[in-house]
């Protein structure tokens, strides 16, 4: 699943000027709808975008990466793209302050998307916090291919769960876990995982969320020999493969550790190949 850099990298990526169509608060996040034009035709679940923040004279010199939540190439605006933004830092705070009609400098689509099975399978989608955002577009695609799609979302508290009503329609079942029990079941997304696998409910796991969650799912998936595609999150300076800051250690073909870029070899990676206990460790 980890793409080898043999062919053209980010073959369909373009730098475009997007227009903000709507920007509304959803729980602790902002749902931003952008008109991006033709480029939407090449965007797949798991791809991400890189956005310039702060305007032309900004002291923030690096692009910010956001997962594409959903896309549409129909409707009165042509190609539109939805992003779910958590206002963590000064860049994302600038983005959520952009009004309708504002222009955004955006590069898309970037990175390796989720792999879609050729045959109908039982897919389990697991999202942590706003990591659920790209899973709803993935669910729609999997469903259209005849897959059965179950979803588990988790967060520390209810306000950090992102589960839009329209997104729920594309899944066969949805379970929510919160650590404080403020909504759904008290616990973690990994709690029911062994049982679901034992019951034969899961052929493939797709996940997106905090690295700790992805690592925990990978351990269970590996033990049960279930394919696990996870979308990783590492801080990036460029998003296009030139800065070498977003690297992750993976097991190479020769058994040695290699450091791959999560922007182009990911963000979607084979969870089994990532050496989770080596992340951030000196090599």
């Amino acid at each position, binding site marked *: 699943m980890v793409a080898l*850099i043999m062919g*053209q*990298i*980010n*073959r369909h*990526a373009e*730098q475009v000027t997007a227009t903000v169509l709507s920007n509304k608060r959803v729980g602790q996040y902002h749902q931003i709808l952008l008109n991006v034009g033709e480029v939407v035709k090449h965007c797949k679940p798991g791809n991400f975008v890189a956005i*310039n923040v702060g305007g032309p004279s900004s*002291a*923030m*010199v*690096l*692009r910010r990466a956001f997962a594409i939540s959903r896309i549409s190439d129909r409707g009165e605006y042509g190609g539109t793209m939805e992003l779910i933004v958590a206002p963590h830092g000064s860049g994302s705070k600038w983005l959520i302050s952009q009004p309708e009609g504002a222009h955004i400098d955006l*590069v898309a689509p970037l990175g390796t998307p989720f792999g879609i099975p050729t045959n109908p399978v039982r897919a389990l989608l697991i999202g942590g916090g706003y990591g659920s955002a790209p899973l709803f577009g993935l669910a729609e695609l999997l469903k259209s291919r005849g897959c059965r799609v179950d979803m588990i979302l988790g967060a520390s508290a209810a306000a950090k769960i992102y589960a839009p009503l329209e997104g729920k329609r594309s899944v066969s079942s949805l379970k929510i876990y919160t650590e404080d029990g403020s909504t759904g079941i008290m616990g973690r997304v990994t709690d029911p995982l062994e049982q679901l696998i034992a019951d034969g409910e899961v052929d493939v796991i797709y996940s997106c969320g905090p690295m700790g969650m992805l690592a925990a799912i990978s351990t269970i998936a590996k033990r049960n020999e279930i394919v696990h595609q996870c979308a990783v999150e*590492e*801080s*990036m*300076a*460029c998003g*296009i*493969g*030139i*800065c*070498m*800051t*977003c*690297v*992750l*250690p993976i097991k190479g073909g020769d058994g040695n*550790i*290699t*450091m791959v870029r999560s922007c*182009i070899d990911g963000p979607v990676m084979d969870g089994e190949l990532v050496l989770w206990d080596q*992340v*951030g*460790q*000196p*090599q």
Partner: protein
Amino acid sequence: MSVELDFSTSFGNAWFPLPVFTASGCASSGRELSQFFPLNEIGGVVTKSIMIKPRLGRPTPRMAETPSGMLNSIGLQGPGIDAFLANDIPWLVSTGARVIVSIAGETVEEYAVLARKLRSVTGLSAVEVNISCPNVENRGQVFACHPESARAVIEGVRRTLGGDLPIIAKLSPDVTDIAAIAREVVDAGADGLALINTLLGMVINTSTMRPHLGGKTGGLSGPAIRPVAVRAIYQVHEALPHIPILGMGGVRNGSDAFEMVLAGASGISVGTASFSDPLATVRIQRELAQLLVEKGFTSLRQAIGFAHRDDEVNGE
């Protein structure tokens, strides 16, 4: 671009039709940017600094954004010279790009070994000898911080490389007298100078109350360091007016590039700006051409070091 502008430049015996290049370490090996513009439409591609053996680099986090800049702590991650020459260079050359290979060693001998491997490679325009990477285990190994070690590296490379391929020595601004280091490496056989590498910096995370970067220290780049670069270029051009300088450090637009040309740069490298704008290198090149024409220059060469003209009149 106006047809009346001679936009060409030279480093030693290497002639380039265009004067704006990628900066080492900011374009990987070229493939990634080729999705956004044809690589032969800029002066050339300066590759990441390549070492003898494959190298995993430093642990993450490797990056911290700072006001108008960033710190990086990559640690020269790369495939090693043999894989690089087998896989990356032939592809780059096939695109019609002019290629400057950047090399980095941990000892004087390693630089010579790298230079020997480059002797038989066809299609290269020049060699950048990076003696100033701040992201090495032992800060004492930053050869460009000491005149003797800087000289020793360049002498070794010149001897092994033979006489044809121009050498561009990349210097650190973290020294007391950069012109003195420049004189040493030119004396030792460098045909040109790359000014400047990143400045050594640190960010401490106030939540964890520990250094933010995995490698603790990192190299500061971006517009924040541009005045330092302009000063270094100005001082070195003043000391060595006939030595071509590849100017870099926070160039974000044509005006920034023009400023460095006025200070004494014969060419410009674009680094951190490519992270926020994949098209930055071609855009800056186009903007620089427009500015030169607007200011009445008919060639890039006329503008190189133009900010020094009053000193010359005064005979200083």
